[in-house]
Structures are given as structure tokens and as C-alpha cells.
């Protein structure tokens, strides 16, 4: 590829052009049948076919990616797309990669080449897709766990549910490395979210030079922060702080990080689609695990347990949240053997909506 000289760069540099128009990147069969698809069928855990009203077909093979991709691995994908897919490729909203071809005869050779290169085929239909996750220790200043490592450990364990084994319905996993939740953790079937458990420590010397005090005070959702005029700084009311870390985001000298007391929680029962029942938030299942890199064995075991219990007990097409609503949360805790704690009771904003107001419940 021809690189730009400084002169050329100045001349050809453009702003505000937006992304290229997608049409030039559509495989010919997609361009031809745009808006004219009739139905699709799932052929196996990683293959589907879409059929157009014209009779044209497009076969899609889906593979996993670890989200962090080296340029080298992307080139390997592109070589395969050049060989089997007329030079087109697409990615999904959950970091999977899709290889498409109109020619049924090309599907098996495509899969063979993908497998030979070590790509994992799956993620379609009533099973696990890829885990949506955040940057973690790899790249984020606010992370209180690693995202990629924990995801890798979870997917190693749940691997059969991606490549083959069916679940009652599609199951969407997510992981966020702090409560900012840059992934869709608050509305996933099962998600891991990293949490703090200690009131942050304030470096008063740094604070007075680095932070705007009104903004810092305003950043607290529970009004736990007040001015400390003597120190030209702020103070925190320990009883009101619930360790969200928002103050740290606007004012780094308020250090929320505490490697010995930070860890992760597991939430369950969220969904996004409006099918059958409305979209739902994820709710707390397990309030805390210590970080245990590199493989977080206790977290992985707890996740696997919940997925296995769901697989055994839910009805066909029931998402985790729908299954729990049918059987009741008290039954969910019993079936999974998860301990119910004070942390499960909402004392932030939603208590009035979440406490039980009926004398009918299960033992």
C-alpha cells in the first residue's frame, strides 16, 4: 500500500465524511436481495441459510472471536473470505465473525479451512453466543477485574453450549469490569459485573490541585460527598457511600480501587427483545467473589451451575428471566443452591418495587 507523504496527507486529509456507505461492502447476493428475504433456517450450531423471494440463497457460517484481535488474525480471516466468500466478511454485534456464500458447495470447504486455522464455529440459535465484554485490565483505568481473562475462562468451561449443545432459548452473557457497564450487563440473561466494597481513600493534597469540588460533590448519586473547607478538599460520609466509583471518574485522587476487596458479582434474568414478555433488567444472583486470576474458578463454577440448572428446568423458548419469573425467585435460589443475603434486598432506588407484597409464595 502506498503511504502518504506529509504533503499529500495535508492535501487529502478530510474531516466529517462519516463512515463509507455500506453498499460497496455487501456481497453481491446480499446487494441483489436487499429487503427481499423470505425466511431463514438454522442448519447447525454455526450455519444458517437465508432464502430470498427470488429463490437465491446465502449461507452464513459464524465463528467466535476473542474480541481482542491482532491484525495478523484479521488477515487470516480475510484470506479465508477471499478464498470462499468473494472477498466479503461481516462482524456481529457480539464480536462474532460471519462468512457468507451463495454457493452451498462452498460451505463445507469453508468450514474445513476455518477449522484448520483454529476458528471455532457456533453461536447460532438456542445456545450461547459470544460474551459481550469490556476492556478490563487490558486497557481501562476504572477496571476492578479483567474482562478478557474471565470471559476466556467462562467460555472454555461453557464451550459445548457454543459449538453444539442446545439450551431452552438463546442465552446472552455479558461482563463488565466496573459498574459503568460498558457492555450490556444490565439486560443480559447472565452477566458478571465487577464491584468495589470499600469507601474510597482521598488523597487531599492531589485533590485540591486536580479536581473541581462542585463537580466532584455533584457526581455522587447518594449525596455522600460534602466539602471539607479546612483541607480545601472533600469528605465522604461512609454510611451513604455505595462504592459506585463515579467520584473517582471525575476526580482521580479519590481512589476507589482496593485490590484486596474488589471483586465481581453475578446478575441474571435480563433480556432485551420484546418477545413474549417485555425487556427486563438483570437482577442480583450472587453479590461477591474475590478476583482469582488467571481463571476465576469459583466464578466460572457458579456461572456453569446457573446455566446447567436453567438448562434442566426451563421450558422450551423460555429465557432465564422468564423461567425465573414463572417459578419464582425463592425457587431459583433453592434450585441453584445460591445463598440469599442482605445484599439481595434493594436499598438504593427500587425497594418499593422489589419487595414482595403478597402472602402467596413458595417454600
Amino acid at each position, binding site marked *: 500500500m502506498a503511504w502518504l507523504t506529509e504533503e499529500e496527507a495535508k492535501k487529502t486529509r478530510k*474531516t466529517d465524511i462519516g463512515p463509507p456507505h455500506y453498499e460497496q461492502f455487501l456481497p453481491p447476493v446480499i446487494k441483489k436481495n436487499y429487503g427481499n428475504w423470505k425466511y431463514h433456517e438454522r442448519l447447525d450450531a454455526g450455519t444458517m441459510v*437465508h432464502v430470498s423471494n427470488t429463490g437465491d440463497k446465502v449461507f452464513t457460517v459464524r465463528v467466535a472471536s476473542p474480541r481482542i484481535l491482532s491484525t495478523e488474525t484479521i488477515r487470516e480471516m480475510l484470506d479465508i473470505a477471499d478464498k470462499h466468500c468473494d472477498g466479503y466478511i*461481516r462482524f456481529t454485534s457480539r464480536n462474532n465473525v460471519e462468512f457468507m456464500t451463495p454457493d452451498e458447495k462452498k460451505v463445507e470447504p469453508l468450514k474445513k479451512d476455518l477449522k484448520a486455522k483454529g476458528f471455532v464455529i457456533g453461536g447460532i440459535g438456542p445456545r450461547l453466543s459470544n460474551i459481550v465484554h469490556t476492556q478490563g485490565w487490558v486497557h481501562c483505568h476504572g477496571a476492578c477485574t479483567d474482562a478478557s481473562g474471565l470471559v476466556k475462562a467462562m467460555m472454555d468451561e461453557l464451550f459445548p453450549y457454543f459449538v453444539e449443545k442446545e439450551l431452552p432459548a438463546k442465552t446472552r452473557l455479558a461482563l463488565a469490569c466496573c459498574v459503568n457497564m460498558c457492555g450490556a450487563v444490565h439486560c443480559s440473561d447472565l452477566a458478571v459485573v465487577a464491584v468495589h466494597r470499600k469507601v474510597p481513600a482521598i488523597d487531599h493534597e492531589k485533590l485540591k490541585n486536580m479536581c473541581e469540588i462542585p463537580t466532584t460533590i455533584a457526581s455522587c448519586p447518594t449525596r455522600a460527598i460534602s466539602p471539607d473547607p479546612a483541607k480545601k478538599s472533600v469528605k465522604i460520609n461512609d454510611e451513604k457511600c455505595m462504592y459506585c466509583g463515579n467520584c473517582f471518574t471525575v476526580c482521580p485522587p479519590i481512589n476507589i480501587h482496593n485490590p484486596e476487596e474488589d471483586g465481581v458479582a453475578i446478575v441474571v434474568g435480563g433480556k432485551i427483545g420484546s418477545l413474549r414478555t417485555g425487556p427486563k433488567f438483570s437482577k442480583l444472583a450472587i453479590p461477591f467473589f474475590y478476583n482469582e486470576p488467571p481463571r476465576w474458578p469459583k466464578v466460572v463454577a457458579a456461572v456453569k451451575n446457573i446455566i446447567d440448572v436453567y438448562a434442566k428446568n426451563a421450558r422450551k423458548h423460555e429465557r432465564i428471566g422468564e423461567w425465573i419469573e414463572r417459578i419464582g425467585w425463592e425457587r431459583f435460589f433453592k434450585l441453584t443452591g445460591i445463598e440469599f443475603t442482605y445484599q439481595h434486598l434493594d436499598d438504593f432506588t427500587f425497594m418499593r418495587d422489589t419487595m414482595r407484597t403478597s402472602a402467596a409464595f413458595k417454600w
Partner: protein
Amino acid sequence: MAKKYDTPLLDELEKGPWPSFVTEIKKAGKKSEMANDELGQLEKSYRTKRGYWKHGGIVGVLGYGGGIIGRYSSLPDEFPGVAHFHTVRINQPSGWFYSTKALREIVDIWDKYGSGLTNVHGSTGDLVLLGTRTEALEPIFAEYSSRGWDLGGSGSAMRTPSCCIGPARCEWANIDTMEICYQMTQRFQDELHRPAFPYKFKIKVSGCAVDCVAAIARADCSIIGTWKGKIAVDQDAVKWYAKNRMDINKEIVDMCPTSCISYDGTKMTINDDECSRCMHCISKMTKALKPTGEKGVSILVGSKAPIVVGSLLSWVIVPFMKVQPPYDDLYGFIGKIIEWWDENAKPRERLGEVIEMKGMRSFLEHIGVPAQPQQVKEPRKDPFFFWKEEDLKR
């Protein structure tokens, strides 16, 4: 390049059947000292259970206030390769389709100037290039923009809009998500590149209520394709599903939330007046069922993750709006939404939070939308309602 660090903890994550991000970082490390130091610093994080990145600094390219996220290591002497490790967000094409030629160009440029590490894609939808130095940002931007690529949004700005695959490869798309998303991104270029908002503003477009881009959970403005006519039933295809071992009564009829479907063992009947268009039956019997009639969008607003005052799902504001190219009505309407939010929000307040603070009525009146029963799950429970002078005159 040679291996630089021993990484016994991270090496554990190269075992097992799922693709390994550690292998990816090592692959990039063969060519890039930055990637090697990323691995070294990460091993230290695994040892000490903490991150070593500072808050992002203000870095960018000339004329833009966003699109680059500054990132500096807090251990620059120990890991000089990641002393600067900025993120470049490239605005993805609608639906995440690429030609191999275009994507090769993208990775070639990145190998020249950056760490060789990417996220394809980040959570908002951008193609994320992970790790470069401040002095490389201008050359990077010149190379990309000269070849037709632009940066995405970051900071308190319009964030890069994203959409589901829509009509490109989905029979359920009620609207042209890909074109709506492309044109919208073009229309809001200034808002996207020059942060002038109280906080971030996200827009996502899904073609139906299955909502494959999670618009209802992850966008201040969630656009969902829908329809107003009947669901057409192909009775031959219904028979095909019955023959292929689908228990239609159990899986479809009993699971319909409005009980508007009946099946007598041969024929399926839908009482369309009672259908809430949830997509359950259509998604399970896609060969047999198809929405017909007028197509358009439902517009919902306000969803966000927990920071600052708890997570929200988007609320229905406009139950149905007809949309057609060039979509001026839709974009104008979104402009009005943003205007109200921008006027009323404190710093770091998202749209949903401001509506809660100022009241839904204030918002609806500004954008010219009447109150309608489709907007609520149930009417209010308390008797403390406001009256305005004009209400009393009615």
C-alpha cells in the same frame, strides 16, 4: 521481535478450546514492542489484581474533540511501550460489512502506526484500534480519512450510531436500518466529532422487536421497526412446521402473550386486532408468518447503564411513526429531543435521568407528542398530579 516478558499467569489463558486473547497479544508482539509491553503490564495486573492505566488525557486530532481516547500507563518507566496507549475509534460501516480489500487497508495502516491490536468491534459499534502514541494520531487520521474512513464519537458527544443487519440479510426488518443509520451518521457529523453535549447521547436502530443491537437497553434514542397491518399466515408452511416436530399449541399458541393465536391441528388463525407484535411467533415460524401493511418505527428514549442514578430501559414515546428516505422527519424529531435534553441537563446527566427530574410532560410538550396509553404499562398510582391552566379550561 523476541519474547520480552515471562507471563506464567497469562500463559494459562492460552489453554482451553475458546480463542485466546493472550495469543492475540503475543501475535501482535511479534511485530510490536507496544503489544509486548501491554502483555508485560497485564501480567503484573494478574499478579497484583489491579489495573495500571491512568485516566484518559485530552488527546485528539485537529478540528475534532473526540474519536480518540487518551490512555497512559501509570508505570511508563517499567513498561515504556505503553507509556502512551491511546484508542482510535473508527466509525464502522452500517451492519459491520467489509470488503477484504477495505479491512486489509485498515489493518495495514494500523500496523504501521499502532500496536497491531484491535477490537472488532467495541460495545458502541466502532471499530476500535487499541494502542498508539500521541505523535502518531495526525498521520493515522490523515491515512484513514484520505481513504474514506472517519473517526467515531467519544466523550460528551453524539456517539457513533449503530444498527442491526436489517434488510441486508433478515426477513424481519420492517425498516431500512442500514440506510437510516448511515444517513443519520452523516447528518449528525458535527455533534459526533465536537463534544458539546452535557454527556454522551447514543442512538441505535433495530429492524424489529427482537432488537439485535440492544437499542432498548443501550441507547438514549432507541428506534425499533414495527408494522400496523395483519400477520400473513402461509398455511402450507404451518403444516411443514407441524410435520417437522414443532408442537404448535405448546410452543406458539400457549406462549403468545396476548392469546391471539388459535390452531386446530391443521389451520392457524391470528386475531390481529389483539396482537401486540412481540415477534415470538414470527421468530419461531419464520417460514409461515410475515408482517404486512404499513411499516414504520416505534421511538423509545432514555435507556442507560447504572451510572449515575441506576439503569433504565427506554420508554415508548412515539408508538408509530412512518419513515421514508431521506428521513428528514425522523432526524428533525431526534434533533428536537436532543435540544430539550441539552437545555435541561446538568453535566453527566443522560436523557432518561433528565426526563425523570423534569417530568415526562415537559419533555413530551417540547417535542410535540401527546400522551397516549401505548406509552405506559399502567397509569400512575398516586393522586398527586399537576394541572396547567390550559387543562382546566378543557
